[in-house]
């Protein structure tokens, strides 16, 4: 590989220094400091199970069987996670509001998702007469298909990567971007002018938040030097002194990217401060008005799976994928760490839903275009600076952190002050 000079001929003269050691160190296969071998039993358990089933098959069929098992595993795990998530959401919301949440169906309400599922299945599925039947049927199917397709590239454990793609992150966001088409189809096929208007509004929200979402992960790709999710997780391996993990969220550009990514993820999955379609101030239930019965449930399944996928990608990009937070905890299998972080993020989604009121549509888009996009662009700058200064050590390290922090916090405060100039808590006089 020729010496990698990042900024083409224009930058070459200025940055003639040789960066290869810095970049190369990132890509070397991660050697576990604790010297623990890869073959810990719990770690390889899923693989052993799979090989037990498909070990005997000849080569082409074995690959097919393996991928089928991977698909079935993903769908089973994440569908049941969707069911448990609806229950967890209502229980946590209840507990936050000092009440128990559903506890009449089964022990502690555990059968509530089953009850909801049966209710949704038995509800009559009304298709409006004027509706474009084919599109009306296709919309939830396409939306759900695209939501599930995004799970293919998320590395759930050290050896649990369904598909190893070189441009995995791009694949993830490409599938995510196509969901807007499904929402448009839902809005258009219902042949109801006001659900079309609401679908347009939902599209405006999705499109305006796609930009910060995509810009937020670029610094991470810069830091990791690769678009492959496995490469990104590998780049976050290792610990500083066994305690501080090399996760991207602990670097200034990574942290800013994480915050922007989470806000944009909230908006992409129509969650709390941005759940415009369910707002009662909307005339109707947005593009979902003409849907009932199981198609309505499919939309929500797609929303929850989208939420899980975005959280999974956030864990992969920023929170060190399946890496353990401490070197000492390396013995716990990697997929357990991924599950813990994923559930933490999902609880964060629910926590935010329990607390915040809703934004108006114009405030929502203004927040995206005037606040998140500028911050994300500046974050590219910090990311670039951070990558170029990886080899600074000792005194220069402090300077590096200081400059990076200024680049992250400065614009945030400047844009924040512009917001606070118009809205601030007031003091009141007494007569």
């Amino acid at each position: 590989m020729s010496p990698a000079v990042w900024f083409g001929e224009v930058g070459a003269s200025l940055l003639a220094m040789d960066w290869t050691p810095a970049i190369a160190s990132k890509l070397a296969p991660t050697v576990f400091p604790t010297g623990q071998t890869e073959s810990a039993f719990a770690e390889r358990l899923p693989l052993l199970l799979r090989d037990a089933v498909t070990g005997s098959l000849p080569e082409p069929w074995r690959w097919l069987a393996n991928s089928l098992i991977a698909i079935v595993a993903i769908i089973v795990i994440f569908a049941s996670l969707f069911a448990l998530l609806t229950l967890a959401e209502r229980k946590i919301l209840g507990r936050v509001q000092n009440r128990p949440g559903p506890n009449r169906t089964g022990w502690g309400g555990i059968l509530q998702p089953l009850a909801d599922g049966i209710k949704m299945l038995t509800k009559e599925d009304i298709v409006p007469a004027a509706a474009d039947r084919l599109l009306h049927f296709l919309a939830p199917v396409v939306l759900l298909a695209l939501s599930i397709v995004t799970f293919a590239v998320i590395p759930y454990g050290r050896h649990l990567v369904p598909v190893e793609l070189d441009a995995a992150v791009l694949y993830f966001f490409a599938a995510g971007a196509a969901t807007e088409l499904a929402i448009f189809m839902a809005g258009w096929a219902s042949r109801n002018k006001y659900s079309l208007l609401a679908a347009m509004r939902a599209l405006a929200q999705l499109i305006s938040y796609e930009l910060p979402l995509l810009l937020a992960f670029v610094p991470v790709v810069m830091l990791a030097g690769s678009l492959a999710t496995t490469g990104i997780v590998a780049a976050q391996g290792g610990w500083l002194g066994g305690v501080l993990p090399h996760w991207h969220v602990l670097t200034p550009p990574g942290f800013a990217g994480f915050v922007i990514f989470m806000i944009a993820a909230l908006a992409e999955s129509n969650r709390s401060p941005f759940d415009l379609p369910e707002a009662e101030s909307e005339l109707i239930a947005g593009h979902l008005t003409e849907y009932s019965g199981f198609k309505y449930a499919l939309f929500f399944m797609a929303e929850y799976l989208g939420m899980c996928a975005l959280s999974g990608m956030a864990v992969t990009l920023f929170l060190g994928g399946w890496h353990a937070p401490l070197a000492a905890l390396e013995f716990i299998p990697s997929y357990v760490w991924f599950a813990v972080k994923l559930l933490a993020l999902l609880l964060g989604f629910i926590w935010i839903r329990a607390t915040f009121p809703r934004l108006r549509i114009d405030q929502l888009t203004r927040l995206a275009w005037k606040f998140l996009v500028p911050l994300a662009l500046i974050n590219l700058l910090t990311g670039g600076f951070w990558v170029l200064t990886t080899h600074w050590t000792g005194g220069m390290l402090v300077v590096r952190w200081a400059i990076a922090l200024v680049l992250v916090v400065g614009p945030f405060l400047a844009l924040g002050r512009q917001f606070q100039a118009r809205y601030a808590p007031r003091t009141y006089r007494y007569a």
Partner: protein
Amino acid sequence: MSTFALGTIIALILGSAAVALCLRRLIRSVLLFVISWAGIAAFYLWAGAEFLAFAQVLVYIGAVSMVTLFAVLLTRRHDQPDLVIEPPARSRAAAGVTIGACVAAVLIPAILATEFPAASATAPTFSVRQLGLDLMEQHGVVLLVVGLILTVALLGAVVLAASKEDAS
């Protein structure tokens, strides 16, 4: 096996584009276009260029389809009846043929002039990093110019949209 896959992909692309042309309902034809763009992405995947395929999906199915759908919806706002196709007229057919001929005259020589490298057995192994480095090193200037054109186009659209709004 792979030529059969190539055949189906090409059939998908051309088929959906052709059907899209002769549909009466505009929205359905735009959605068929989206399927043909997906076919093109599948072709890139078949050719082993994953990055290009995902970029195609992200750009075309994510954004360009939205633009065309919005354009279709906005133009129909003045409640014209569905785009009615008048009966075939000789003058229009002649115009169609001449335009087709001119475009073919430009394209065919260009295709014949280029000699394609021998189709190697397997797609070249190729990493995204290599693509990034090539883009930045050899084609850095080209990238900047393309970026400039896109921003100018975006600004033009914004100005157009803004001015149209004040006028109405």
